[in-house]
């Protein structure tokens, strides 16, 4: 009797394991690409209300050639992905004079993905390219505003690839290569 019970238990456990694999494991492994490594930005975040962190955001320096780092209070995010989203939302938000942002007006964060290798994929709205003034310097400042905002504040993020309107792009305005993730650039920071 006890042997039958043990056998039945084993069969039951195997069935539960297979069921878990089929209905929980496989969809996670073979489902949407970002499901395993990241979460889409549209998902609500779990942020303690009112909790803030200090983060360095980047704006155009007086000489117009470099970025200057400004410390801001940014909403706390639970984990690197959520914190990255909060930092980016603060970085692309409109600013009041005399501060000048290198991110074109109207630009919003559409989605954010983070791989376990420390690569962040930042999907920005089409305004980041369509409303761009052009010029190599402006484009460099725009791109590295985003790249530096993540890599300087979050050690878990080492490189950043900018996407536009959900797609990989060659450049924003014809100059800076965006086909690969970019590392931080301190030469551009004052």
């Amino acid at each position, binding site marked *: 009797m006890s042997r039958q019970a043990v056998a039945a238990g084993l069969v039951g456990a195997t069935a539960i394991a297979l069921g878990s694999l089929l209905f929980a494991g496989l969809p996670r492994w073979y489902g949407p690409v970002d499901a395993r490594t990241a979460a889409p930005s549209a998902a609500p975040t779990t942020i303690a209300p009112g909790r803030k962190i200090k983060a360095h955001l980047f704006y155009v320096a007086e000489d117009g050639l470099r970025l200057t780092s400004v410390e801001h209070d940014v909403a706390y995010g639970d984990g690197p992905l959520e914190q990255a989203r909060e930092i980016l939302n603060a970085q692309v938000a409109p600013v009041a004079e005399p501060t000048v942002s290198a991110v074109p007006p109207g630009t919003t964060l559409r989605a954010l993905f983070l791989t376990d290798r420390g690569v962040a994929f930042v999907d920005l709205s089409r305004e980041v390219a369509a409303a761009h003034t052009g*010029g190599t310097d402006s484009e460099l400042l725009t791109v590295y505003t985003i790249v530096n905002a993540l890599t300087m504040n979050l050690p878990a993020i080492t490189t950043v690839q900018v996407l536009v309107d959900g797609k990989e792009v060659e450049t924003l305005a014809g100059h800076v290569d965006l086909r690969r993730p970019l590392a931080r650039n301190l030469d551009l920071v004052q």
Partner: protein
Amino acid sequence: MSFRPRFLFPATSLLALGLMLAPALFGQGTAPSLTLIARDGRRAIPLTLVADQEFVALDDLAAQFQLAVQESLGAVTVSYKGKTIVLTPDQTLASVAGRLISLPAAPSRSGRRWLVPVEFVGRALAPIYDSRVELRKPSHLVIVGDLRVPRISTRYDAIGSGGRLTIDASPRATSTVSQDGDHIFVKFDADALDTPATVFAAPAAPTLVQGVRLVDPLTLGVDLLSRFGGFKATSQPVDDTMRLVLDLAGGQTDTTPPPSNPPSNPQSAVPTPPSSPPPELPPAFGQSAPAIRTVAIDPGHGGDDAGVRGSNGVKEKDLALSVARRLKGLLEARLGIRVLLTREDDRNISIDERAAIANNNKADLFVSIHANASMRNTTAGATVYHAAFFADAAQAAGAARPERLPTFGGGLRDVEMVPWDLAQTRHLAQSGAFSDLLIAQLGDRIPLALRPTGEAPLRVLESANMPAVLVELGYLSNATQEKQMAGETFQNVFVQAFYDTVVRYRDSLHAGEAPGDRASRDFK
């Protein structure tokens, strides 16, 4: 090799058909096709153009590469021998054997078929396939297996009554040269040739060479004027290229005007034995050979892309073209070198095409002309950029290990491979040296920016296989500079300074000076 063809086409007829149809197809804006080259033949894979992005059907790839394609749980899974690619509709990211990659566009459905960007072949399929798969997007080739498919480019320089035809094969491929009357034939030791749609652009002025054409999949035919007097062929490896130089002598007594077309029947011409080397031509690889023979000038933007627009209406694309034309005129007139413009008028041209024009013509120098913009309208001055790469990219290109390939007749040969996107890595020191020279010449003639030189991952420079810089003339966002740059005086001063820089750079190369002690300067 696991690759098996579904259809076998006669390679010669397909290549000839492709060469004949390519210009017409491109001219009509029809989507071209990918040509797949494998050990057992060639096949065409249709492409579909959607918003200027080339797509290929997964079904077509599956048929050619024995892939299994399944759609389930909102994802498209592509499998090959236990390795899996997972694509998600509306997502440009894909999982390739567990690694995340990005594509330039998301997969899209066309009827019952799934279309993927053509880059899928190189980024997703190649890593999981058990043979080498190389996508050459500019020439629409997919090479499967360890095949030798050198890129062929030609250049002609008139020298006295003769001329010099340079034929480059990259990666290196040896060739044999033979003559039949007024025709020289160059047969390459390769599996196939990667030739541009137009193998040879005939110069405007009458020259000894009337045309270069593909006479069979591995042979170029050089059509010569009847006053051609003889030739000397020499070949030498240059970096990853095997350079064949044909020094051509003009006939001394034949004053017959050149025919307007090459002879249609090469066999009817009277065979002429090769003569001794023409005495008036310089040695092919001697010290006296000019260090700069071709300069490629790239006027930035163009067509629908106006670039920066000044507050007074000056457009970057127009300014760049105006300066480029002036520069071409001055360099050609004073130095007698060939100067190419990547665009001669106001039209769209892709970034890859700009680099390809310079590379295919074996330019010795590439300069991209632009005008800058700043979010602050007081910023002013010129800046000269050269390319920067990540350390791992530069190391990857520098350490590109030669592939050991078998040769006809036995034996092995090392062939160096350099990725298209990393071609500039080997020229960074010279590009930096040229940048410094240019800034020194510009310094007391036009305003310079506070940071007049820079290094950045600039797309147009990365694929240039020669010293290359991008010049920002000044800031169109600054109304004073806009007015200044639009004027003839500013443009002529810049052009003169650039000319002086080229002369100094050429002289330094002639003198054998090191281009600078700069190492690869990468972003950290």
